């Protein structure tokens, strides 16, 4: 589960707006990764057995566990790597080309 709000990209009018040191607040996220995706994982909830593997193994943490049986894909940050679909034993996740969604 992500617990941050998207931040606006900073606009600097003068050097006083530039952060002190080479620092920035943690979890300061302005840009999504959705544009990286070629294939989109699409979940068929009727086949999901709640094994948690897609949620466990997503390198982007983009599959959120809402409860023990409901897993939601955050398409803003999913890169479409396909690990979830490959690991899903019951075949509840299929990879669909973005332009065919």
């Amino acid at each position, binding site marked *: 589960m992500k617990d941050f709000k998207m931040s606006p990209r900073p606009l*600097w009018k003068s*050097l006083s707006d*530039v*952060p*002190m*040191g*080479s*620092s*920035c*607040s*943690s*979890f*300061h996220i302005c840009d999504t990764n959705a544009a990286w995706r070629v294939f989109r994982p699409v979940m068929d909830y009727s086949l999901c057995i709640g094994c948690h593997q897609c949620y466990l193994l997503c390198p982007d943490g983009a599959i959120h566990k809402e409860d023990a049986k409901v897993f939601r894909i955050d398409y803003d940050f999913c890169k479409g790597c396909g690990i979830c679909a490959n690991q899903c034993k019951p075949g509840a996740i299929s990879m669909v080309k973005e332009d065919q969604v």
Partner: protein
Amino acid sequence: MSEFAFLNGNEAVAWGVRLSRPHVIAAYPITPQTKAVEKLSSFVQNGEMDCKYLHVESEHSAMACSIGSSSVGARTFTATSSQGLLYMSEGLPYASGARLPIVMMNANRSIATPWNIYGDQMDAMHVLNSGWVQLFVEDAQEALDMVIQSFKLAENHDILTPVMINVDGFVLTHTYEKVEIPGQELVDSFLPAIEKAPHLMNDQDPMSLCISAGNQHYMEFKIKQHRDMFKVFEQLESIDRDFEKSFGRSHGGAAAGYRNEDADVILVTTGSVTGTARVVVDSLREQGIKAGLVKLRLLRPFPSDDLFELIGKAGAVGILDKNISFGFEGTVYTNVNSSLLQKGYRGRTFNFIAGLGGRDITKENIEEMFSALLEQKGETVQYFNMGCAL
């Protein structure tokens, strides 16, 4: 209560550090800095300092550990010299870019090869562009006092820049002088506990440090750092004024003049050689020669305004360099000369290179420098106390 003791420069620095109550010291031994870290270790091992002493395996890690501890807001000290400074040099711009208020003693020493353990200022010049405040002290008392002042300067939220205190190897680090050790209570009231800067890591508002910035952001980060560094002049003077009120001693600001107001010729010095030069100025004055002296305490930030004001209308200025930038000239000279030119100085400038690898700089050498200035004779760059012809 203050007390007097005979201390060498290393011990004076160690006392300055002890009185400043750092949270963390990370250091690796190197001649001629060793006595400072030995003294600090014994303070810690005897329970006289409440401080984490990290026995690191290299200077590179000494600086890296210092970066770690300073980035969570701990008051941090390290010390090194020569090859050690060069080995940790990757970490220096790292620390200054991150605006970490680390204080370091650098026992000035020559650079190999040939190997040589004695004092010159080649090491400090190698890292002049590292973004650290570079301060040079003249004696053990100034070394002790400037450790305390340096923490106050570095930790000031307008400054937040690491400070390197340059102490001439052997001439200062190993020479005993009578030093006043201020009382702890007085130091505590002058230098209170560090106030954590908001950009550092903390539990309430987690921070990402030493981040990447692309070509659309990098330059602004660096220009901000550069412009903030000029604030050091005013802060250093104000800290020294407060210091004088508390301790009854003043060391001045970025540069200090000696019999310079009406001088025809002026010698610019850094560090311990200033003492010898002062004696020569006095004896020349007795002979009716209008000689003067300007001691540069800061090389970064570079005090262009102060320097021009102190040098004023002297007909010729000599810059004594205990270093050389191969294929060019002494580095202090490059800085002074450029800054005087910008200010419209019309006199002639000379560069006197001396004291490399611990070679003595005698009163006679300094007299020769003044006579070169008075007669305005010879090459712009001259070498002193050479053992053979060029």
